[in-house]
């Protein structure tokens, strides 16, 4: 086993990287083109080609350079931007507005997103119904397909969903990368428990009111997706909350702290994904034999998952989203992707290759639809 890796040994040769990328190339080609590329619409064909090349170049570079996070982040941020672009352009086409009306609610036309899931569990158990005005089997953001996607992803990736699958996470991930050094360095990591309080509160209030209270009152991403038409003091107050939370937790604080503060301090689904981190086979491990306790990984972690005490004890907390930032920061390769049951410091390459293939495949296929749509929209605008 590869248990004596040096800091650069995750790099592969060009040929080997290409070989490792082949399965991804074939599978993403099938999903992005549908197995039968259609060249009748040039902008669609070009958009598909750009997306296909983009995802595979990023995956290839993960193998070739041995680095994970920066290539993951590129696709993750593009995913977040393209999803908002797709959603907003769909809504402008359908409604001429980013806001939805009472009629859209009555006709259950609101696109469903995974953040609703924590709020629908209790009502589904007690009332045998879903407390969201969407469509169960809709072609765009149907409830059943989003639940299946999230369920499998959280089972397989645990909180890795927050860095490899969540189409909102890219927003604060992106803003957290703008500055090279944080302005605010000291933040109590006890704030990371806050999402559990939010989860408890929204689960309870949603059950009692039979409405998704997080979506109605708190969700910062309403600011970049859709929101209730402002027709009253209450709807104006809601819009104010959405914009303030987006500005504060998704833009300003990530910019000043280099941390993903919305994901760390607010997201109720992140709390559930944290719990599912106990189930997933993949984890991040600390090879204490190689660790010099420089704590660069602790500073790099955007989700407060690493502490100095944890590093000394060789433990990564359940808050880890497996983004790979800590792994890239470690020059001694002492922190690495691992598989539960396999001792730390062993099977580093195997664990990384398997995890990267699974997590990147999920992100590449999940994001490809909205990225293709965005590129097509941009190409149509240009030409």
């Amino acid at each position, binding site marked *: 086993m590869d248990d004596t890796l040096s800091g650069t040994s995750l790099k592969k040769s060009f040929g080997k990287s290409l070989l490792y990328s082949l399965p991804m190339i074939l599978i993403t080609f099938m999903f992005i083109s549908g197995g039968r590329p259609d060249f009748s619409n040039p902008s669609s064909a070009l958009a598909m080609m750009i997306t296909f090349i983009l995802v595979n170049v990023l995956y290839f570079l993960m193998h070739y350079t041995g680095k994970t996070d920066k290539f993951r982040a590129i696709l993750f941020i593009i995913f977040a931007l393209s999803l908002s672009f797709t959603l907003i352009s769909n809504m402008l086409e359908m409604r001429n507005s980013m806001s939805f009306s009472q009629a859209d609610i009555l006709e259950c036309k609101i696109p469903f997103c995974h953040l609703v899931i924590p709020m629908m569990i209790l009502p589904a158990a007690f*009332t045998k119904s879903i407390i969201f005005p969407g469509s169960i089997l809709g072609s765009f953001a149907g409830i059943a397909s989003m639940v*299946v996607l999230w369920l499998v992803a959280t089972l397989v990736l645990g909180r890795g969903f927050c860095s490899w699958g969540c189409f909102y996470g890219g927003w604060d991930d992106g803003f957290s990368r703008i500055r090279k050094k944080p302005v605010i360095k000291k933040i109590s990591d006890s704030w990371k428990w806050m999402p559990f309080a939010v989860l408890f509160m929204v689960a309870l209030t949603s059950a009692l009111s039979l409405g998704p209270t997080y979506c109605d009152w708190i969700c910062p991403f309403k600011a970049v997706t859709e929101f209730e038409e402002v027709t009253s003091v209450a709807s104006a107050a809601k819009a104010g909350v959405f914009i303030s939370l987006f500005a504060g937790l998704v833009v300003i604080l990530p910019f000043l702290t280099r941390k993903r503060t919305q994901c760390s301090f607010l997201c109720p689904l992140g709390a559930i994904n944290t719990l599912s981190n106990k189930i997933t086979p993949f984890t991040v491990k600390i090879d204490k034999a190689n660790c010099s306790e420089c704590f660069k990984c602790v500073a790099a972690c955007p989700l407060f998952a690493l502490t100095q005490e944890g590093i000394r004890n060789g433990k990564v907390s359940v808050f880890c989203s497996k983004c790979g930032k800590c792994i890239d920061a470690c020059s001694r390769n002492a922190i690495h992707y691992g598989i539960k049951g396999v001792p730390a410091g062993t099977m580093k390459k195997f664990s990384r290759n398997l995890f990267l293939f699974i997590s990147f*495949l999920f992100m590449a296929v999940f994001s490809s639809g909205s990225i293709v749509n965005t590129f097509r929209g941009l190409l149509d605008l240009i030409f």
Partner: protein
Amino acid sequence: MKKIKIIAGIAWAFICLILIIVLFPGLNSFSSSLAMLPFMKINPNYTGGEVAQSLVMDNCTIDIRRPVFDGLFGERQKGFVQIDWRGEIPAEIIDTIDFDFDNNKDFAISINSKSSETILLPFNNKIRDVGISTPTSYGWAVRVNLKK
């Protein structure tokens, strides 16, 4: 024990690999199966409840839905009844509604479909006020708030 743990961990990781590979090709099938579960239906507080009676008029149909009092553990004290007008909506909708089908009219409603002005005239003390009155893709919908 150590070897068993390693084998179990790797086996679980490979099961996850298979899960991800079959996830997207099988998504429609998995979603359809999930959609058939008894809890996979939209709550009546959003749908407005099942249509209890349809009255066919000259140019439009009036759907009177069952009153919705649904709460988490049972019925609430306050609820609503939704009335839908489908088809060609006149400039002025004026109808009297018997939503509990006891042969006594419960309220009269007048809607100006140009200005959305909605006037409710209750005939019994179960009727509270107009909750929602809005144009829809199929015509017009009104929710009249009720108490038990």
